């Protein structure tokens, strides 16, 4: 296949990837978009086979390895529970990162296969691109592994900080730049290995100080990195499909990180520098005063809801942990049978990744046109009779609007307290991840329901 023809076909697959993302602008077009993505991928892979044109024994092995990886991927995709999506995505990011590292290593060892020169005499531009691809890929890999371990609960979600952490990271980054410069002049393979090793270390170091609830930002950020790594490799291989995709994914992840940071009213650097919650938690719990709380049982909650004409549900990470989404939808079905209007309010950072709650509700067969974003629904709380907060906490805290001293001051929150009554399902009075007491607990119109989210929801349904 001629180089020009394959370049055009790579461009076609790049365009199909753009259409795949474009399709996600609404659920109706999204499935078609995904199909475009698959077609784009098939074109890219086929063109690569045809342009390499080597159908010797190596080709059979490529197919075998492709099949092995593919079946592992398919198996995971069908088995993974929807509550585990954040872990899955973090895990997938790590694979993209590592694949980028491997391709860069291979290109470094055998540059002639990629038309980049000969070992020890690689074209300067290619060497720089390769080094960038490998470094970003390695950072993505080790960062994603840490994110995965934290999300999976294998590693504590608490931020790990130590003195001089930021200084160390900065020094390591400078070291990477220096190594790249030396690599260009000496073409030494030892330097290349050291560069990759240090990049792995950086990925590890920048993710450990970030707390569990900041994971939406981290995952989006790693998403972005995996894109930049792919783009770096795309420049090395002079491949348009890879460059376009890398740029798309890179900017997509960056935008998601921005949206997540805005949802928490924190700057990107504030999240990256980490350590949020670790210091506040201790100081807050010491001076915690005992304030009266009204608590109730499923019966009380059912009574309140039965007499309501509109109910707004506010789900959060706790719903995912308790796997309560199906029980919740059953409760809502019963409410609807009684002609009660029900809608769902989703905060941008609810859950552990962007859009996490929406997927869980969709899984429980909640129609997506009953689910609303913060700006769409926030004015409705004042007119609603009951707000049912299930597994959310900080995103409902009125302190964010009233107390400039609070660490979450200025964060956009759901105006849950404006409802006539608030039902708050929670296991205990403990503060959320930010370590801040939620004023909502002590409001006159709040009824605390201390129980496991799933069990409480089921009990309410029985009492309706």
């Amino acid at each position, binding site marked *: 296949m001629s180089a020009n023809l394959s370049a055009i076909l*790579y461009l076609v697959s790049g365009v199909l*990837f*753009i259409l*795949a993302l474009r399709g*996600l602008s609404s*659920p109706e077009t*999204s499935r078609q978009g*995904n199909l475009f*993505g698959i077609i784009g*991928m098939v074109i*890219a*892979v086929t063109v*690569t086979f045809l342009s390499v044109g080597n159908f*010797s024994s*190596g080709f059979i092995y490529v197919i075998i*390895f492709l*099949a*092995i*990886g*593919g079946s*592992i*991927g398919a198996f995971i*995709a*069908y088995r993974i529970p929807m509550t585990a*999506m954040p872990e*899955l*995505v973090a895990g997938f990011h790590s*694979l*993209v990162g590592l*694949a980028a590292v*491997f391709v860069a*290593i*291979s*290109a470094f*060892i*055998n540059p002639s*296969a*990629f038309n980049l020169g000969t070992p020890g005499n690689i074209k300067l*531009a290619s060497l720089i691109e390769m080094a960038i691809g490998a470094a970003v890929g390695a950072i993505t890999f080790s960062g994603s592994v840490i994110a995965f371990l934290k999300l999976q609960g294998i590693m504590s979600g608490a931020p790990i900080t130590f003195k001089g952490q930021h200084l160390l990271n900065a020094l390591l980054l400078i070291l990477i730049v220096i190594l790249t410069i030396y690599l260009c002049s000496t073409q030494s393979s030892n330097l290349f290995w050291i560069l990759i090793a240090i990049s792995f270390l950086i990925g590890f170091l920048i993710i450990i100080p970030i707390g569990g609830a900041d994971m939406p930002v981290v*995952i989006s950020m790693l*998403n972005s990195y995996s*894109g930049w*790594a*792919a783009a770096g490799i795309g420049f090395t*291989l*002079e491949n348009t*499909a890879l460059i*376009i995709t*890398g*740029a*798309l994914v890179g*900017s997509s*992840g960056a935008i*998601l990180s921005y949206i997540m940071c805005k949802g928490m009213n924190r700057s990107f650097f504030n999240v990256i520098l980490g350590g949020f919650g670790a210091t506040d938690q201790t100081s807050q719990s010491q001076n915690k005063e005992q304030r009266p709380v009204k608590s109730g049982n499923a019966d009380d909650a059912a009574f309140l809801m039965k007499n309501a004409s509109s109910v707004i549900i506010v789900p959060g990470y706790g719903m995912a942990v308790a796997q309560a989404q199906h029980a919740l939808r059953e409760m809502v079905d019963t409410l609807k049978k009684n002609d009660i209007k029900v809608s769902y309010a989703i905060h*941008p950072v609810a859950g552990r990744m962007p*859009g996490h709650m*929406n997927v869980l509700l969709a899984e429980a067969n909640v*129609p997506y046109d*009953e689910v609303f*974003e913060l700006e769409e629904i926030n004015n409705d709380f004042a007119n609603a009779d009951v707000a049912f907060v299930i597994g959310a906490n900080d995103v409902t805290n009125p302190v964010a609007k009233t107390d400039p001293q609070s660490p979450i001051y200025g964060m956009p929150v759901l105006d849950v307290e404006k409802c006539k009554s608030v039902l708050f399902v929670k296991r205990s009075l403990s503060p959320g991840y930010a370590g801040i007491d939620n004023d909502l607990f002590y409001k006159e119109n709040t009824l605390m329901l201390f129980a496991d989210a799933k069990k409480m929801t089921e009990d309410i349904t029985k009492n309706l």
Partner: protein
Amino acid sequence: MEIDPFIFRLSIFILSIFVGYYVVWSVTPSLHTPLMSVTNAISSVIIVGAIIAALSGSDGVVFSSSSIYGFLAIILAAVNIFGGFLVTQRMLAMYKKKKKDK
């Protein structure tokens, strides 16, 4: 004077960042999780590089020091391609509109 082909690739890269910027802002927030899984799947187009690397061995030598990295990268990228697209498909199939029959 001739323009370095690198400049063309850089132009594509920069323009794609802008395309990505506008396309992603138009993604509805409720589909942000599928967005992440699908970007994951498409970034595995890095398999293109992995295939070239894997087939780089000289005649008769399938596994050389450089092609082994290619084969490893193929496995990783394939997990991602199949896993990413299929899990996205699975998620998107769950998004349903309200039934009109009530």
